[in-house]
């Protein structure tokens, strides 16, 4: 650095030139930035909160990518809106034995490059994901597969190491063409057989998908889908309100619903969701390993009040991990209604009388820096204070928070399970062998009876018997108060009024965009701002 020097020297022309260049540079750079106008008739713009980092279905992990993939790729089976396996590339399947499945493929399915999809592509994709050297995030879920065979181009046979009742739920990965899948830059412009093909990808900015004319499901009604990445929540909502984002799904906070509903030409829909919000306990903690303390906490929380305050009523109280719509959800479980007097009694019994400072005990509650998570923590802390539990709320950046939770370094925390449709997740979350990194039993819960029920349910081929075992397990988990089941927030989405046909999938996937279409009376339903000639949209249509 140079000290300030006062100088009578007359400035040389170079400085003036530099100054002029600084002023002109942006203008010059803008010359090439101006040529960009993404919208055309039949284009639907989706607002995303995060970048889809990798759109290779064998490697994708982030929610943003996983939700977009069904538009680009077809899978052997897909999960319908109710979360049940349904035919996609596999037209039909047979279970020859509890460890042997045969899938008969649909004919006439082509990849975006025109090559026909065959059993060899299916086998290639699954073998690739099972190969440890490829580090696929799906490798763990496919560990049960012993071998894959393709007796003919339209048949795929899976042989399992042991019976696994939820096997079909794990066959939803997109199928990659064997002739292209090994290319190093496959993820830069992936080729699948889905209803949309790759258009353009500007990381951090936008992903454009084009309708695939040769789709076996028929050409989609939309010409293009533009996914715009707008990380800032306020900006995203303003863009929707301004009519420059047509669809927001998975990322509308309840407080914004009245704001978006005021927007002409925008329809906001809410419906019961299956995302499960819970309060987690560390069962190895000296205070929390006593079930009476956990039950006291459950009784102290006024869920109805928090749902009203935080969700404006847009949530349902929850009793178990699986939402009531799930075929394996247990209806009659311990629900711990709001009862502060009982909570105090339970704490008294557990040996926590009121101390001179008016409290009975102190606990720490970890949360991420997510605003809603922090507000929720404060509301829960308020309820717990009323029964004598002092709560210290500690919020951390997501990676740190998540690392702590998995390491068991917490007393209380709250998180949500999104889009759970497969009841085998109970094994993953509550079995004693599922402590991280083997699973998500973060509270280190161990109950031999629950372990037994969850293990047998995995091997059970009779659906009724399996359901009975899963329900018994859920009852025991609720009785042990491993989690406080809080609520299922509603699914909220906003769609520009000129479109119709969108159907929200429980996992947040954009699958139904293949059937979304423009309403015939579309120009009339344009928002007034868009009608004025928004630069993104071009002329009104």
């Amino acid at each position, binding site marked *: 650095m*140079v000290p*300030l*020097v*006062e*100088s*009578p*020297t*007359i*400035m*040389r022309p170079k*400085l003036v030139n*530099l*100054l002029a260049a*600084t*002023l002109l540079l*942006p203008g010059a*750079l*803008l010359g090439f*930035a*101006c*040529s*960009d106008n*993404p919208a055309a008739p039949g284009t639907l713009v989706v607002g995303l909160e995060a*970048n889809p*980092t*990798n759109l290779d279905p064998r*490697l994708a*992990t*982030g929610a943003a990518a996983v939700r977009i993939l069904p538009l680009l790729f077809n899978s052997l089976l897909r999960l319908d809106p109710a979360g049940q396996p349904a035919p996609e590339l596999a037209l039909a399947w047979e279970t020859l034995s509890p460890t042997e499945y045969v899938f008969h493929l649909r004919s006439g399915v082509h990849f975006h490059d025109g090559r026909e999809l065959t059993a060899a592509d299916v086998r290639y994709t699954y073998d690739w994901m099972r190969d440890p050297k490829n*580090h696929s*995030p*799906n*490798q*763990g*879920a496919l560990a049960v597969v012993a071998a894959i065979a393709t007796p003919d181009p339209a048949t795929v046979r899976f042989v399992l190491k042991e019976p696994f009742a939820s096997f079909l739920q794990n066959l939803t990965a997109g199928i990659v063409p064997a002739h292209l899948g090994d290319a190093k830059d496959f993820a830069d412009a992936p080729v699948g057989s889905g209803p949309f093909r790759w258009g353009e990808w*500007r*990381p*951090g*900015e*936008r992903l454009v998908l084009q309708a695939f004319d040769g789709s076996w499901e028929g050409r989609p009604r939309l010409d293009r889908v533009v996914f715009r*990445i*707008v*990380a*800032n929540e*306020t*900006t995203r909502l*303003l*863009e929707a309100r*301004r009519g*420059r984002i047509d669809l927001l799904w998975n990322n509308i906070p309840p407080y914004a619903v009245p704001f978006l509903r005021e927007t002409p030409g925008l329809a906001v829909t809410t419906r019961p969701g299956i995302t499960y919000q819970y309060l987690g306990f560390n069962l190895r903690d000296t205070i929390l390993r006593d079930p009476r303390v956990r039950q006291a906490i459950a009784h102290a929380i006024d869920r109805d009040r928090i749902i009203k305050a935080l969700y404006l009523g847009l949530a349902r109280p929850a009793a178990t991990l699986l939402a009531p719509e799930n075929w394996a959800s247990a209806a009659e479980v311990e629900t711990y209604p709001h009862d502060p007097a009982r909570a105090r009694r339970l704490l008294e019994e557990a040996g926590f009388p009121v101390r001179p400072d008016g409290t009975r005990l102190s606990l720490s509650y970890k949360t991420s820096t997510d605003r809603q998570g922090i507000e929720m923590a404060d509301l829960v802390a308020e309820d717990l204070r009323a029964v004598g539990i002092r709560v210290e709320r500690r919020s951390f950046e997501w*990676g*740190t928070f998540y*690392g702590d939770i998995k*390491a068991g370094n917490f007393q209380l925390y709250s998180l949500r399970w999104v889009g759970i449709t497969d009841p085998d997740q109970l094994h*993953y979350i509550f079995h004693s062998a599922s402590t991280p*990194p083997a699973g998500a039993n973060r509270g280190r819960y161990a109950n031999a009876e629950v372990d037994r029920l969850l293990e047998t349910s995995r091997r059970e081929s009779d659906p009724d018997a399996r359901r009975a075992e899963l329900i018994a397990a859920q009852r025991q988990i609720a009785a042990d108060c491993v989690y406080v089941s809080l609520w299922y927030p509603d699914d909220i989405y906003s769609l520009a009024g000129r479109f119709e046909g969108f159907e929200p999938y429980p996992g947040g996937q954009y699958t139904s965009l293949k059937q979304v279409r423009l309403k015939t009376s579309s120009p009339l339903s344009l928002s007034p*701002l868009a009608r*004025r000639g928004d*630069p*993104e949209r071009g002329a009104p249509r």
Partner: protein
Amino acid sequence: MNSIGRRLLLLVPTVLGVLTLVFFLVHLIPGDPVELMLGETASRADLSQLRADLGLDRPLGEQYARFLGGLAHGDLGRSFFYRKPVFAVIGGALPATALLAAAAMAVALLIALPIGIIAAVRRDTLTDRMAMVGSLLGVSMPNFWLGPLLIILFSFRLGWLPVSGKEGAASLILPASTLGTALAAILARMTRASMLDVLGEDYLRTARAKGVGPVTVVVRHALRNALLPVVTIVGLQFGALLSGAVITENVFAWPGVGTLLIQAITARDYPLVQGCVLVIALCYVFVNFLTDVLYALIDPRVRT
């Protein structure tokens, strides 16, 4: 050795220091990229396999040595999440940040110079006081607050400009104004102070006595010399501009290095974090070096 060569040599330890600090900081924060990459269903064997493949099972000192070795060969490694070379990932985002920073700088100079000059020439008048109060406000407003405010006014109420995104000239105006406001305020105050110093100089009195008009005195004689310290401040404030870009890019969905950096930190993508910080540090150090060089060119007394 001349001063430029000396300063150029000094860049090496500076950048190396920044990189060392960042390397150890990102490795020390809790959170495991391998678990984030493989998902929660991965077995312990898979996790340790990937950890070994990425070299994350080696002692930190050895990883650091390998990182420096790679850097010496121009290799920053591969992004864990994009699964592409870090240079390629950053290369895609850098032009957007450069454009934003340059535009913000332009906005700052366009606002600061006229205000600073007028305030100095009309010293202690209402105009001067208003300009200085305005610049105080400009410095005090954080980007994450000013950005949404400008969006609400210009995009939402008036409908003149796009809310966010990078779609042509109009979309640059709000982010550049948001990012440039604080710098404009600082530069306006600096220009005013510098002009006041120069306006009292003997050579200006001589110029006036020779009958040179007031505009020519201010623009041709005073401003040229008053701008020297302003150039230094521009260089020094470039760092603040880059850090402000991280927030501004988030508010305006601007696809630059700031957005990438936040994403990389959340995902514990160590090579990408190191790459982003390297690029930002290099920009900062380079602009300061340029300022020094420029100063040496302008003022012969600094060359020795």
